[in-house]
């Protein structure tokens, strides 16, 4: 009975006929029926595929239509300007070739511009991602992609899986990636959209966690200086193990977020009850209330949300990454400031505008020296 409802709601969702309540109900039902998850994901993927277009047939249909119009006395030109009359398969074939050539030229141009921008940037600013092949390192068989502060990058892996890398992050993978197993190492934050391949599992190693993937999209935030490691699953299914407890497997379902405290190993002596946060917690992904933006992946759009549960010190780490600035707190109290979470976010704001907005919520004093924001009061 409820399963029936799922298909009903899925249909409305896919045809974009569903209202927000229906979308919410679908989400709830899907959580109750994880067994249907896989089918739903495949149908959703299937839905996205465009039907194939028979281009030569389409072009000759257009020529037939134009001829027919001419016969009926409409003053429509038979061929595109400059191409003359005499539409035949041969000429449309030639036209195709010409189009292909134009396309190739356009692509090369884009590539050229892209490369130019790439090199120009790498010379004069830190807005660049680097892919270096470490020749002298013992890990010469690894590819490394890293992003500096204030920049983000998109990587397409050999298996066509896509990784968006947030600022100050690093992704390592073997040059033989994908031959038998697909393994990467991540330090920092990345959004993964993994191509399904049941034969070759995709595994992400972070400092604290190993994440095993089927075919799925999710965000991993694992910066070494952050208090927690967060894994947010957007769709699909992933299996997470903590490095220090390899036998315990945690399965994440869509819209769930796994938060692991990074100091977990060291402060084992602190009694569990005294901790303000649990060592490991499964929570929900946060949707921005107004337009449903997923807070955990908003960085891909260069957007940074102010989260109610995060202190200024934690927020400062995100600001450092977004703006490529350093933060220095000369006042311990300000470090613990919180700024509420009424969906506030920064996107195109300058660092000054962002700090000013924060001052309005909870006043502090700051000044900027070179690339360091100093907060003293």
């Amino acid at each position, binding site marked *: 009975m409820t*399963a029936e409802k799922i298909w*009903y709601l899925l*249909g*409305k969702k896919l*045809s*974009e*006929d569903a209202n927000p309540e229906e979308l919410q109900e679908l989400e709830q039902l899907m959580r109750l029926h*994880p*067994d*249907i998850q*896989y*089918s*739903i994901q*495949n*149908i959703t993927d*299937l*839905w*996205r*595929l*465009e*039907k*194939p277009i028979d281009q030569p047939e*389409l*072009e000759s*249909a*257009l020529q*037939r*239509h134009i001829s*027919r*119009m001419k016969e*009926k006395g409409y003053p*429509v030109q038979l061929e*595109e300007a400059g191409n003359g009359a005499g539409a035949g398969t041969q000429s449309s074939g030639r036209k195709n070739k010409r189009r292909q050539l134009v396309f190739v030229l356009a692509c090369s141009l884009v590539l050229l511009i*892209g490369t130019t*921008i790439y090199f120009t940037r790498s010379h004069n600013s830190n807005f*660049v*991602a680097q*892919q270096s092949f470490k020749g002298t390192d013992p890990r010469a068989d690894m590819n490394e*992609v890293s992003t500096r502060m204030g*920049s*983000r*990058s*998109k*990587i*397409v*892996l050999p298996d066509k899986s896509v990784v*968006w890398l947030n600022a100050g992050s690093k992704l390592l993978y073997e040059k033989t990636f994908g031959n038998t197993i697909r393994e990467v190492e991540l330090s920092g934050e990345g959004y993964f959209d993994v*191509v*399904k*391949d*049941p*034969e070759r599992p995709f595994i992400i190693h972070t400092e604290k966690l190993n994440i*095993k993937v089927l*075919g799925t999209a999710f965000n991993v935030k694992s910066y070494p200086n952050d208090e927690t490691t967060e894994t947010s699953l957007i769709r699909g*299914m992933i*299996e997470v193990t903590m490095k220090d407890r390899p036998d315990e*497997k945690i399965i994440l379902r869509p819209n769930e977020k796994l938060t692991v405290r990074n100091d977990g190993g060291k402060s084992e002596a602190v009694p569990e009850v005294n901790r303000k946060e649990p060592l490991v917690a499964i929570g929900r992904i946060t949707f921005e209330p107004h337009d449903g933006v997923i807070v955990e992946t908003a960085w*891909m*759009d*260069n957007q940074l949300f102010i989260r109610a549960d995060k202190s200024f010190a934690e927020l400062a780490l995100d600001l450092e990454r977004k703006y490529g600035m350093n933060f220095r707190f000369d006042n311990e109290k300000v470090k613990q400031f919180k700024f509420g979470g009424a969906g506030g976010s920064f996107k195109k704001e300058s660092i000054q505008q962002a700090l000013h907005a924060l001052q309005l919520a909870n006043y502090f004093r700051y000044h900027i020296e070179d690339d360091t924001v100093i907060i003293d009061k």
Partner: protein
Amino acid sequence: MCLTFEYSVHITTHDCIQMDKSIQVEDLKKRIALFDDQQAYRELFMVFYTSLQQFAFSILRSKQLAEEAVSDVFIKIWEKRSSLDTIDNLKFYLFASTRNTSLNYLKKQEGLRKINADDYWVELHSIYFDPEQLMLTAEMISRVMEAINSLPPRCKLIFKLVKEEGLKYREVSELLDLSIKTVENQMTLALKKLGSAIGFDIYKSVSSTIRSPR
């Protein structure tokens, strides 16, 4: 392998194509209406011809007649191009005109006869599967195809119009003269069949890589 990007939004290709398409159609409509732009007219034809021809074919069951019907629809568009701007939903307008024109052809051929949605005949190979993108096994694809093939004609048609042509439930119900309830029920049926065809295989294809949660 590595591309730099400064400003990126994660939009699926589908969203992109859908969004681009409706903006593109609006733009073409304006160019045709205001400037008699023949290039825009050609582009509009290219955007909708295949969909409309397939829809006409489901009524007429003749490739040649279907092509002529769509050609007639586009001739009408050219005739009334100056008032094109007043049509809000050009896509639906084209589908509705194609239906009317096709039914008129049918009347001329077979005398007066009302066609109901059960009589529509949908060509199936146009429902497209790319096994590489979907990571479905050949066996599963044949099962999915079988599931869609076994749908009643009306259900198949509704599924195709919603999935491939991106029509809304309300538009399909108007186009086929059915209640919204019927469209909803038929879509539910189609997805359920598709779901069970795909779901059947899940543990078989997954068990080798991921341990079952239970």
